[in-house]
């Protein structure tokens, strides 16, 4: 009797699966009525705040573009899918995005799934400009471009800055199981003057709440390099109050952005600086406008550089398409991803430049790395 039940169930299951196949179309853009921009990012789970920021900001940019009439009357549409910061979920997302008519992409939000996305998009020749997947290998092929700095470059630039400070000992605090943090750390270490002694402390995803052991180790350091995201950084700084030297400097990379929204930096005695492309507290006009629009539409808690960068990505793609159309290129709404890729990559590696929230006169190198000014933002001076 039980076998009967199972048999029936299995047959029904198999039949259901086969039937659903018929309902599903192939990956084509022939039926598009809008330009479709696809992105895969962590919309749930521990990294969700980054994915949500990208989704919100990209959506905001698209709504602005559409309200202004789109590209010669053709509107844009965002398809954002959740990858839970898990590379094995990207293949399904990518296939689904292709079937939804994706023509151009923002890649992924984070690096780990991005490594998968890079290869998949190269197979199908989809142009992507990622706001925040900063891994060095993300723009490995000619279809991939970054709006953020690549990790290795950030590490190297940070090391050069530190070499110039004339310190003989620095502390480093990084997350060993995070490609972003590890990527910056490796290049930082490689480019650091050999004469500078380092105290290296690490943490992992399994322990992001208690840094007392690491803080105890870093007690004697005047300068602490922290290539990590703002959430663990805010925990570290809170826990280090009174333990670390008050005249010490916390020096981070673009992951630090968001700190000001997270903790009241005036209560931190140490200096907090970062090398970044965006600072939400900056008084640059573009930044002020973006922050105002974002906080009106969404909550201020999810505002960070990921979002700013995604906002720029959408506008950069839009501007590029607009310029190409003005130059007489044909970009119908049903253009295939591959055709658009050929146009876009030539345009991005040509003399295209873009000015937005995360920088002015941004250009791209032939290898997909971004070329823009990294600014040292001092979020807070050390207490006197």
């Amino acid at each position: 009797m039980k076998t009967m039940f199972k048999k029936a169930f299995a047959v029904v299951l198999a039949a259901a699966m086969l039937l659903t196949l018929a309902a599903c179309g192939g990956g084509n853009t022939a039926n598009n009525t809008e330009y479709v921009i696809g992105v895969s990012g962590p919309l749930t789970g521990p990294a969700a705040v980054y994915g949500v920021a990208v989704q919100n900001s990209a959506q905001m940019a698209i709504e602005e573009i559409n309200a202004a009439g789109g590209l010669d009357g053709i509107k844009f549409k965002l398809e954002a899918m959740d990858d839970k910061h898990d590379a094995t979920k990207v293949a399904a997302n990518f296939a689904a995005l292709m079937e939804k008519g994706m023509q151009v992409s923002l890649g992924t939000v984070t690096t780990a799934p991005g490594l998968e996305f890079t290869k998949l998009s190269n197979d199908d020749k989809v142009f992507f400009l990622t706001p925040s997947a900063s891994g060095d290998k993300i723009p490995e092929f000619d279809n991939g471009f970054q709006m953020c700095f690549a990790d290795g470059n950030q590490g190297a630039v940070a090391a050069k800055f530190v070499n110039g400070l004339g310190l003989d000992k620095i502390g480093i605090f990084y997350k060993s199981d995070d490609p972003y943090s590890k990527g910056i750390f490796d290049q930082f270490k490689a480019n650091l003057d050999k004469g500078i002694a380092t105290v290296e402390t690490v943490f992992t995803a399994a322990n992001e709440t208690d840094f007392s052991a690491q803080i105890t180790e870093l007690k004697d350091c005047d300068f602490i390099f922290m290539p990590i995201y703002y959430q663990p950084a805010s925990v570290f700084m809170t826990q280090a109050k009174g333990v670390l030297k008050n005249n010490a400097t916390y020096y981070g990379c673009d992951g630090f952005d968001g700190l000001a929204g997270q903790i009241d930096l005036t209560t931190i005695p140490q200096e907090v600086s970062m090398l970044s492309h965006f600072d939400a507290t900056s008084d640059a006009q573009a930044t002020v406008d973006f922050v105002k629009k974002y906080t009106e539409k969404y909550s201020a808690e999810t505002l960070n550089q990921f979002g700013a960068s995604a906002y720029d990505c959408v506008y950069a793609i839009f501007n590029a398409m607009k310029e190409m159309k003005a130059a007489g290129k044909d970009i119908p709404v049903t253009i295939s991803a591959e055709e658009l890729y050929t146009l876009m990559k030539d345009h991005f590696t040509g003399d295209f430049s873009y000015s937005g929230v995360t920088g002015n006169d941004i250009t791209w190198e032939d290898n997909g790395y971004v070329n823009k000014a990294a600014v040292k933002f001092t979020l807070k001076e050390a207490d006197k």
Partner: protein
Amino acid sequence: MAAKKHIKWSHYINYAVISLATIILGVLSIVGALPASYQIIFENIAIAITLAVSLSMVVGFLGELSLGHAGFMCVGAYLGGKTVYLLAPVIGEIPALLCGFVVGGALAAVCGIVIGLPALRLRGDYLAIVTLAFGEIVWSIFMNTSEETFGGALGMPTVRIDRDYLFVIALVVVLLCLAVTQNLIRSKHGRAITSIRDNEIAARATGINVTKYKLAVFAISAFFAGVAGVLMASSNYTVQSQKFNYNYSIEILVMVVLGGMGSINGSIIAAALITFLDIKLQTVLTGELAVLQDLVYAAILIVIVIYNNAPGLKTFREKYNVKSLLGKLHNKKHDPANARDDEAKWDRVPTKIQMDEVLSVDVQVKSPYDPDKAGKGDN
């Protein structure tokens, strides 16, 4: 004789369904009628079935709770995946994949034996925690390897076998896994294994070599988990070790438990349905709806488990289900001769977690000592 024949046929129904599906889907794929998203779904389903069936051997038939199945998979994915990556340029993708299966599976099996050793000494939750610990140790070791060896935090690049036929290979692996598992379970060795689950001391007393069987089950189960790992490595361009943390082990366990302990067909169906649901939720609930995925998944999980297992719903369940409705159609009576050796009533003796023996004498529905009533009487 007729009864015997019927049993045989029902033994092979799952092979038949899966083979048929493999052939039809394979043809569809070659013709180009199978969308990429479905190729990916079937790859994932095949991987999930292999995992669920292999875990079911340990949990359902040997009766030991394992929370580290993803650890074996991790070993297979990294070492087998590396083998494929190194050999593919030399001997071609398919032969390299086969070598990968052998290497990944064998090394995972070795780990299975290593983990099986404590199983000789530990019971229930204590063993569960050791398997969990094993899984966590494995992935955190691969996490800290250098970029040249296993990629470390950035993950290890692998060869992505063409998705037009990888799922066919994966379904063949499922068939192989089924063949090994079912034949083992239905042999005298299988009866020895289930007897260890039901009463280890009695089994030992009847002369069953408990040590040998426990290690063998762990090894075989780990072998197929390793093979599933190789499949996963080959269905992606990278493997990243965080994937194989305890959450993934629990996901596999959910499939086995939902399918019904000690029921291989149940595991297959549950694995297929959960994977299908998971990917569909992920690709349908997009954008701002994405937060609802876990909500829907959790709600479905809770409702199904309560519906399937709540003692209070037993009468309801027996009245309205496919089984009884079909039974009415066929008007067949339960014949003890048709009972299968491997058919474990999973509310009977599912695992050796020590709570079982307490629970088996516990609040039964018909118990005259209904605690609620007793309480009310006091008031």
